[in-house]
């Protein structure tokens, strides 16, 4: 059994090593450079299983809304022309808002829909008593319960003080599961990593920021505007720093997730690109030879990226919980003078 598995693995690796090599030969003869950044960018179309699915364009230009089924039909209508891959109104004016549905947005929605589906199905199951009165049944409910208890106990309870943590568990759990889905979708064939987009992570961080400030205690604002326990001239320096600090936290949160996902994707493409580079420089034989090394390396990178995808979702959730906990915390004894800022 083990030997059969090993043989299968080696055959697969060999196969996957030779196929890109021969493909690289074709590609280099066709003079089409690999578009590294294009792979991680947002597109107005989905390429699924060889199909090219155009996504709708919704554009506000000059105070008028335009709806089109695809980029092509927008160009055909005569109102827009394509310049460097971007749509521009043909009468020379500028686009006010581009609300077009993009590939990242589609995967964002899929992740949200999956999260909703899972939680709703599970909530119904628990409401009926399975898992509360009896043991959780099946691998799915067990997995769900492990994840949920992990988020509740390890992330929320440990970082948000007192009984307040219960209020934030739904948000933290939704963020955790949603980001995990979005990160892992990028590993699927034809998938796009929605979190490798600063706008997606920015919105997620904005939610954390709003929830943090909304639930902030009086002490939190006191720490921001009138830092307790220091002589008043110090506050001239401390208040701006604290106000900047409010905004750098969600900013770092967004950039961290975005950059991690982006770099993982770029790294995989660059690794595979080595095959093409070697083929281009030294011929097909060296290209196939290098792919024997590069393909297992890429597989290892994929495994690492799957791990990083879950880890980054954990870190995003953990830091959200820490920020919420820091703001919601109520300090009691400031009379000591040099109370350390939590």
């Amino acid at each position, binding site marked *: 059994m083990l030997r059969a598995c090993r043989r299968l693995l080696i055959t697969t690796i060999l196969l996957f090593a030779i196929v890109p090599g021969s493909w690289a030969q074709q590609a280099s003869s066709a003079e089409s450079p690999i578009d590294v950044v294009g792979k991680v960018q947002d597109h107005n179309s989905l390429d699924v299983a060889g199909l090219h699915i155009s996504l709708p364009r919704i554009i506000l230009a000059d105070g008028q809304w335009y709806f089109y089924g695809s980029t092509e039909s927008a160009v055909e209508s005569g109102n827009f022309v394509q310049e460097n891959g971007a749509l521009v109104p043909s009468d020379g004016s500028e686009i006010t808002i581009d609300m077009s549905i993009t590939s990242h947005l589609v995967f964002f929605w899929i992740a949200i829909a999956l999260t909703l589906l899972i939680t709703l199905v599970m909530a119904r199951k628990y409401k009926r008593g399975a898992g509360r009165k009896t043991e959780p049944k099946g691998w799915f409910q067990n997995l769900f319960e492990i994840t949920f208890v992990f988020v509740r106990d390890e992330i929320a309870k*440990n970082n948000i003080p007192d009984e307040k943590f219960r209020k934030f568990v739904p948000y933290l759990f939704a963020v955790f599961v949603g980001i995990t889905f979005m990160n892992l979708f990028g590993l699927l064939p034809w998938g796009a990593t929605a979190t490798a987009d600063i706008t997606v992570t920015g919105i997620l961080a904005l939610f954390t920021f709003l929830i943090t400030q909304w639930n902030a205690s009086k002490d939190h604002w006191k720490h921001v505007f009138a830092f307790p326990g220091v002589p008043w001239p110090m506050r001239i320096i401390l208040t701006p720093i604290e106000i900047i600090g409010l905004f750098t936290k969600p900013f*770092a*949160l967004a*950039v*961290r997730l*975005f*950059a991690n996902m982006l*770099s993982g994707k770029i790294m995989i493409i660059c690794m595979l690109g080595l095959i093409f580079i070697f083929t281009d420089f030294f011929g097909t034989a060296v290209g196939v030879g290098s792919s024997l090394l590069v393909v297992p390396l890429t597989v290892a990178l994929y495994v690492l990226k799957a791990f990083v995808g879950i880890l980054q979702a954990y870190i995003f959730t*953990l830091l959200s919980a*820490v920020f919420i906990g820091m703001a919601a915390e109520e300090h009691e004894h400031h009379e000591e003078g040099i109370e350390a800022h939590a």
Partner: protein
Amino acid sequence: MGLLAAGIGAGIAAVGAGIGIGMIGKSATESIARQPEASGDIRGAMILTAALIEGVALIAAIVCLLIVFLG
């Protein structure tokens, strides 16, 4: 020149983050060796601190990417 600057910047950011995360790993393994029963808490604190350091390094890396693509 922009490419050179981006390369050097990314390298320096990697050095800084490497030193920082290395020191976290060092002290975390040391303290786990000293107190194995507290390994859970230490691991949590380790990941949190590493994530904070990583964030700074990644901001530097993004700035380098922007230099490459825009500058």
